[in-house]
């Protein structure tokens, strides 16, 4: 997993305290510590790394950030028209199903 706190939290480097806190709480709701303890730790570390203005400045000035690159990658994975919201899964083609099942067979017999 990416260790850039902005990338972990899925935030722009210009996010302020309020935006960071809101995003962190939303992520903790999605990945509660009792169910996802490891993921929660990662989120917590990321939050602590950027939760103050001085910390954010330190992160921005003294470290290189992969957050912009992560955003570019996420741009590639964005579902057109969804605007970041999750939608119901569309059914794939029969060929895609068959390919993934047969791929599983090849992986399983190893």
């Amino acid at each position: 997993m990416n260790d850039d706190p902005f990338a972990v939290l899925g935030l722009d480097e210009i996010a302020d305290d309020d935006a960071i806190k809101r995003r962190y709480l939303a992520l903790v709701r999605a990945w509660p510590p009792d169910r996802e303890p490891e993921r929660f730790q990662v989120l917590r570390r990321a939050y602590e790394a950027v939760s103050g203005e001085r910390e954010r400045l330190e992160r921005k000035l003294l470290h290189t950030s992969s957050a912009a690159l992560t955003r570019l990658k996420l741009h590639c994975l964005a579902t057109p028209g969804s605007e970041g919201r999750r939608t119901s899964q569309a059914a794939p083609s029969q060929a895609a199903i068959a390919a993934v099942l047969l791929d599983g067979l090849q992986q399983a017999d190893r």
Partner: protein
Amino acid sequence: MNKIGLHRPVFAPSPDALAERGADALRRGRFKDATEIYKQLIRQDPQPEWRQRLGDAYAGRARALVEKGMFKEAAIVLENTLAADGTIREPLLYLSCLVRQGQHQKARRVALASIARLPTPDTARLADFAAVLSLASPAPAAAEVNPPGGDPWAEQNRAAQAALQAWLQGSPPDEVDRLLGGIPLRSPFGPARLILKSLILPPDAAAKARALVAMVPGESAFAAARGAVEAALADDQDLLDRWSGLRPAQQQFVAETRGLRTAATALLNHVLDAERRGPAALFGLLIRPGSPLPEDGLRTACLNLLPAIPQRIPEFERRFGTLPALDRNRTLALAAEANSDWDSVPHHWRAVAKVLADENAPQARLAQAVVLRHLADLALKHPDAWDDPDVPGRDPVAHYLERSIAADPEHLPATLDLLERYRTDDDPKGWHRAAEDAAQRFPGNVAVLLHAVNAAVARNAYKKAVGFARQVLTVDPINITVRDRMIELQLAHARKQMRSGRADLAGKALGEAAEWERSEAPSAALRIGRTLVAMTAAQGSGTRDTLRPPDTLRTVVQDAGNATLGWFCVALEASMMGWPDTRMQPFQPELEAAQHSEPDRATILALVGLLGQKEIRDRRRVIAPAMRHIEPYLQKGSRIAWTPAEFQAIAELLAHLREFRALHRYASEALRREAGDHTARFYQILARAEGHRDRLTAVQESELFTILEQAGKRQDFHLFNRVQKLVLGPEAGRALRGGPRPGVAQGSLSDDEMAEMMAEVTGNKPILPPHEVRAMVKELGRDMAIELLVAEISGSPMAQVMSETQIMQLCTALIAQAMDKTPPPARRR
């Protein structure tokens, strides 16, 4: 290869010999040879055993071919074992070969035919394979082959196929769910039910969907489908984390279920591939014109790659425009740090700080402070490489910390770092100034206030120290550290007054000290001090005391809990207050009892703590009367099995107090306990030479060099420094863990080193003749004489190489030596 002569029946070996050779070939993994031998044996005598062995040989050969990736050949070899009932040796291996050749229908038929004839767990595995094959490559209805007793299989297969087709054709989730109900969870099609169910759940039931799909066993042939579905259900960030771990078929599945654009996922794969190849490759990909990705994101991503590839700044500027000074210098500074180019690092970071300072906005000030703190940190970590024209002759760490605090006064860690820096660098003036400022900015912070107390004490600003101490107690009313410190200070002041014959002022000082005492934790030292002062005052006034002070003193010692320690405290305090020996006569029995009592670890360690107080340990001659009682007791303690740390603390104190007889005893006892103890051996030699290098024999010197070398190898820096100081003299450089610190070589000496330096200076280069010093003390008093000397030296060239504290210590040592009329130490060889 050793071919067998199969075409020469005249010389054909006997069946037994052939069987033996066949078994040997099987054992050695020569399956091709084994196959030929058993074929020949079967031709001669078709025994079931030879057929079994022949099957083993075919299976072994097939496995060897599969390992080489020759699946087609392996399948042909295995088909030699096909039985009349349709079963085959190693059906899982055979299935694998067929799947890899794309013969899915045939693979499914083989799987179904083999299911009933295999023992578990292979049956379950085959059924798992068969279920996947049935869904991936369904047979035409007419050609369906069911396994023996296969009605349940056929029903489950039909239900799974129907549910899958319903989902693929976009039927409502309820309809798909109803069809899934026909698939028992424990059947081979159970994983398909879990997977399809998770896919038809609404987006707000993502957690449930994830939980369902997680129930598909990881070792199942459905595991790849599980991985694909988990990725399809993930949020964007999670999907990105998983994406590079997905196989192409899984990526395709995810792309189709999430409606991702093929060009976008292909671009993502290019980006991930370039990222794996390094920053240069990634930069090369991102900077290409015509990318469908957002321009500002591309610029920021490229900017963040530049510290790893600074040579590509011109390319960046051609594409995105000129880099601002801040970004350029930051990039170059980070690049220089990555390459350990310490000549360039400070230059670029200073340029960044300057740009930020010029901006003069609140956030720019904070950013400037961040950069300055970083510069301080770098100067601390890389002192050898640090050459800073901005701060000639100054400690760059303190310089940058000060500037960072000016830019961001509310940053507490930097403030504490600066205070600690001044404290350890023996800069009381800077310490005091910084602590006063900090106390105003952080009036409620105990750590800052304690610095302010100690810095004020170091500058002899007693009233300020009291003020800060009171401030500490308003924040933390219990704070034992500050209470003890203030009592210690008042005691020191009272001792001074007593030595000057002012028992009244001493009594007043100790009365004030009582304010710092907690009623539930009385200070034995303070009570002893007050009683001694009261006794002096009573005697001085000529009044006959009603309280019988000697008895009061006995009560005080008794109340302290440890009579031995208590009476040694009395002796020490009396010496420090300048009591003549005769006045201690009434307590001689108690002192002798203490002296002859059985030593114990706690009392000796407490005594070491007491004697180790700077004010006491630096007045060796003043405490000499008390030491006459304490030293025999300490000597007896040498028999205790001290830990290395305890031994070192005791030995160092004894060496400092020049109690060489006791030190020798401690070292000898430690060597008796452990003959190879280098530390003990060093102190034994030190004690024999009484701390003088010129009294070392050639053999001892040689042995010390060996100890020095071994201490260096073990990274025992304390022993290394200590031995080095004895063998080479105090001017020898100190070894510091983690490398030297700036300023250490020039000015930062320990108290021990300072004491030795004083002896050297006063021994070899007298600043004033002793008789003149004595005359000055007689005329002006000791304290005034010291001040006068300090003033004289401060105006001399010597002041350029010494701090104020060092000058003060030098003058104190000069006066003490002149008054004691002690001969200077012998010159070094």
